[in-house]
């Protein structure tokens, strides 16, 4: 792998950039691999990457039915934060966030992690108490957050209308090292690094069936034929249910549409990420100048990648009230993704009823921020066959015991 640097660019500029090599190879599948990961989104690629990096397992194929990074990795609002309430959530999201801090250097690919700070507004007294609880939990979890005053909120984000009138800002939970990243670059950077380790990323290869013998997985049938494996990881977000069905089990999951939108680009006016959960809206400004806005989920099963527009309207109402200056901006583009919601809205990183078949799914509306941590934990689970501490609580048997990892209990939501 040729290293990227400003010198490399200067060198290439002299020859009109004709000498750049492919970021990742596009090989045809081998008959078998030690590990197959289904799904070349951020989570799948990160899983492969850490299998190689942390466990030396490089005989890995990542198969993808479309183009890599083309699912929710390329459709989210790129928020990175770890100010979660429950210990197991905070652990994995903070692991992810801390890996993001150095990911550009590690991958030699600028993923543009921008720790510009994330604030979650408290706009009711109930929300104040909820965020104070999270702040106390975070203090014990090693997650740097603080509860800040309305004045500090205004200093950090001058375009916010903190005086209501409907929901005056009473404070905010502030994570200064939260922020945003460049979503596509995360997938591309991991893909390039995986490819450099000799792993195969096989795009346009849809899995049509999962084969097993004596309760152990043996491989997958794909549109490019059968590919054998000793271990199989299913990391396909919105289509987890379909893959699980092929593998012979049912997941506590429903697939619903989640929407987002961006405005036309304007000059920088907002340096932080703001989430306003009372009114259900969140917003940040991208490096291009677009206001990046997240909406809500539909309440019905949906695989179309199209949500219902009234959710967009609700979000925009809320945000115009919170950020009055956006009223005269224009919505440039809206889109939807299919998210898989579990019974407690927390993910699964788990063994499954099928031997050597592992699942990583259920990230709901909050998966992007977790990618490095999720891949790290999934790689550990797949390499060792047993979960490490990061994944332990996220097993799929917790529902039977009633052992929820419920983040909605505080005022927070899992975006």
């Amino acid at each position: 792998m040729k290293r990227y640097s400003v010198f490399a660019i200067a060198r290439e500029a002299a020859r009109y950039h004709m000498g750049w090599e492919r970021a990742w190879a596009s090989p045809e599948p081998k008959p078998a691999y030690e590990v197959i990961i289904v799904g070349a989104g951020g989570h799948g690629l990160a899983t492969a990457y850490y299998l190689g990096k942390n466990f030396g397992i490089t005989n890995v194929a990542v198969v993808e039915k479309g183009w890599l990074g083309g699912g929710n990795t390329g459709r989210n609002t790129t928020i990175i934060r770890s100010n979660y309430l429950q210990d197991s959530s905070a652990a994995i999201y903070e692991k992810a966030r801390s890996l993001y801090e150095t990911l550009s250097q590690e991958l030699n690919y600028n993923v543009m992690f921008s720790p510009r700070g994330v604030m979650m507004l408290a706009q009711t007294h109930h929300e104040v108490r909820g965020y104070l609880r999270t702040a106390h939990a975070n203090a014990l979890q090693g997650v740097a957050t603080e509860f800040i005053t309305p004045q500090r909120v205004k200093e950090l984000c001058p375009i916010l209308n903190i005086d209501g009138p409907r929901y005056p800002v009473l404070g905010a939970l502030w994570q200064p090292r939260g922020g945003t990243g460049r979503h596509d670059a995360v997938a591309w950077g991991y893909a390039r690094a995986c490819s450099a380790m000799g792993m195969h990323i096989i795009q346009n290869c849809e899995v049509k069936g999962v084969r097993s013998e004596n309760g152990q997985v043996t491989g997958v049938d794909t549109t490019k034929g059968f590919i054998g494996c000793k271990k199989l990881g299913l990391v396909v977000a919105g289509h987890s249910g379909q893959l699980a069905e092929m593998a012979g089990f049912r997941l506590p999951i429903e697939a619903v549409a989640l929407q987002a939108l961006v405005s036309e680009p304007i000059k920088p006016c907002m340096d932080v990420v703001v989430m306003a959960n009372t009114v259900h809206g969140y917003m940040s400004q991208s490096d291009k100048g677009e206001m990046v806005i997240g909406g809500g989920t539909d309440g019905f099963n949906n695989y179309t990648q199209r949500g219902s527009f009234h959710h967009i309207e609700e979000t925009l109402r809320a945000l115009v009230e919170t950020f009055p200056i956006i009223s005269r901006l224009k919505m440039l583009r809206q889109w939807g993704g299919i998210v898989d919601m579990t019974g407690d809205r927390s993910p699964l990183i788990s063994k499954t009823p099928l031997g050597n078949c592992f699942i990583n799914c259920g990230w709901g509306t909050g998966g992007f921020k977790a990618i490095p941590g999720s891949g790290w934990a999934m790689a550990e689970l797949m390499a060792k066959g047993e979960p490490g501490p990061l994944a332990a609580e996220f097993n799929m048997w917790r529902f039977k015991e009633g052992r929820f990892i419920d983040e909605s209990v505080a005022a927070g939501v899992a975006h």
Partner: protein
Amino acid sequence: MLILECPYCGVKAEETELSPGYEAHLKRFGPGSSPEEFEAYMFARKNPKGVHFERWRHTYGCGKWFLAARCTATLEVFGTYPAQVSEPPADIIAKILARRPDWKPE
């Protein structure tokens, strides 16, 4: 932005007049049921990419719950029917089969 006809009042209601209620025809398991039965009742949702039976409430109308047969991949609606049944009625099944000949009722 779906429209579904409420079988009680005959209104072609749009989604914003309705509240979604996820999977229909769930069988309740209470005290005495096994851990597996109860878990399945609570969590093991059918999540098909295709024909799905689901609950809707005509919240901004007559307030009644009704059931819909809908395709989750195309959002086509095959029909709606009152909630007081434990399985999809035959006419709804027929309507689905007319448009999805390969579909197999459970």
